[in-house]
């Protein structure tokens, strides 16, 4: 069966694309995520920060329906996390730190593979691939093996691939780890442009200056999510002049 890739028939009354209530995950007697609640608006760039081991990855895996929560509820892209995980998967994109691209396939083959998995019809897929390659100025490279293109391009390509099925939300897990300052900024430009089209961006990063590019950010600590707001609000609340200092003050407490 070919999956539908666009949904125009669902009722869209909520201004939020992510609504999380008391979401909890326990592994044995260890509570990795402890009753977290938050909402993310449509088209918002939401930064999800936290120390290593704070529970970020567990939380993201639940939101992407890769892991069942122990308790609590969430609506992702308008669908119930507990009952409609298939619909959620069709409406979200995911790009991780370790790019999900295949090194020994060409640029085009990679995009074709992911687009086909999402059930995008052949001709439509071809059009979409070439229009995103054009936007990235990579159209001459479509026959190039992915392993031979520079890291910065790989990152942009991984992002474009995660966007092929036109998801409503895209999860970016440390997308800019290890790239140089100029390429990082180019990547953020891409994020801004995508958000301006109404796509919700959910992003984790260890670069605190990048946290300041987000509309709102949250900082997880010991499985809990108690700090959430715009970068300016958090700096005022914690009496700090940068997000880095907010982070250090909050996590050390």
């Amino acid at each position, binding site marked *: 069966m070919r999956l539908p890739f666009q949904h125009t028939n669902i009722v869209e009354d909520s201004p939020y694309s992510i609504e999380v209530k008391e979401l909890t995950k326990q592994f044995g007697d260890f509570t990795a995520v402890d009753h977290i609640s938050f909402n993310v608006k449509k088209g918002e760039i939401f930064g999800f920060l936290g120390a290593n081991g704070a529970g970020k990855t567990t939380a993201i895996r639940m939101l992407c329906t890769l892991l069942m929560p122990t308790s609590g509820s969430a609506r992702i892209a308008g669908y119930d996390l507990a009952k409609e995980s298939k619909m959620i998967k069709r409406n979200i994109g995911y790009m991780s730190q370790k790019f999900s691209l295949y090194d020994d396939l060409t640029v085009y083959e990679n995009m074709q593979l992911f687009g086909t998995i999402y059930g995008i019809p052949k001709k439509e897929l071809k059009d979409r691939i070439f229009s995103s390659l054009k936007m990235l100025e990579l159209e001459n490279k479509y026959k190039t093996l992915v392993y031979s293109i520079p890291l910065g391009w790989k990152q942009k390509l991984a992002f474009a691939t995660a966007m092929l099925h036109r998801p409503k939300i895209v999860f970016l897990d440390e997308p800019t780890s*290890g790239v140089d300052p100029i390429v990082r900024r180019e990547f953020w430009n891409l994020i801004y442009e995508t958000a301006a089209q109404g796509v919700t961006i959910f992003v984790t990063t260890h670069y605190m200056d990048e946290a300041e*590019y987000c509309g709102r950010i949250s900082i997880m600590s010991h499985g809990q999510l108690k700090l959430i707001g715009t970068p300016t609000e958090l700096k005022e609340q914690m009496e700090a002049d940068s997000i880095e200092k907010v982070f250090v003050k909050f996590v050390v407490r």
Partner: protein
Amino acid sequence: MSIISVTDLHKSYGSVHALKGISFNVEEGEIYGVVGPDGAGKSTLFNILTTLLLPDSGEVSVLHKDIRKDFLEIRKYIGYLPGTFSLYPDLSVEENLIFFATMYQSSIKENMGIIKPIWQQLSPFKNRPAGKLSGGMKQKLALCCALIHKPILLFLDEPTTGVDPVSRKEFWEILKTIQQQNISVLVSTPYMDEATLCDRIALLQEGQFIKMDSPQAIIDSFQGNLVTLHTHDIFNLLHLMEQCPFHCNFYPYGEHLHVIFYEDLTTILPSFEKFLQDNNQIYNNIQQIKPTIEDCFIEITTEKKNL
């Protein structure tokens, strides 16, 4: 005499020229930083200096010994923390440490003095499998294992990549205590803010050092006049800046915009502000500031591209 001495080092993998003629010296007791993005050649350089890889050409001596001939001797006195986690995940914290101590015919007891400040943080987890530690703790254990044979020179390849800001800060505090024990350190990092914590740094890009000096000297050599301003809509402002009529270089920096001008600010700044106001931009806190290493990196690399 320099503890690391490198002259015109080249290394290629097939058609990829990973290191294109690198020369530098590291002096005894220094923390020397190699700063650059992924793919710049950092790990290749580290692999050559730690005698794991042979260069194509160039003179390389480590601890006054030739890396081609005296590699066995060099290995006894260096510690190496590779960029990827290389401990045994199914051995406990303590077992890993014993393993590495024994490999060097040493023992934990003998060299506890060196690792004590780090070991104190780790010892509550000493029976936990190394694979089950958090990222920051893994790095601390790896550092203990690299130090347990009391090396004279320590190589750290991206020890803080993917590590959160609090753990990164702790890691650098530990490095300072290592330096106090007369251990020289060569460390690589993609984080520009960590560069200022080194005594000297080299900025590496595409297999070449584009700048080498103390962090302060690099900052002092910044060519332009750097102006920062705050805005709530950086995206909109960036679009407008594409049409900026003045000769300048601009980029977002956190929630600020940084603009590098190459003319006297007293004349250009009022006209720049007029340009912003004419285009209905709301901004505040516009002022000249001292550049960071990140600003310097951007200036140097864009200069190179414009040539």
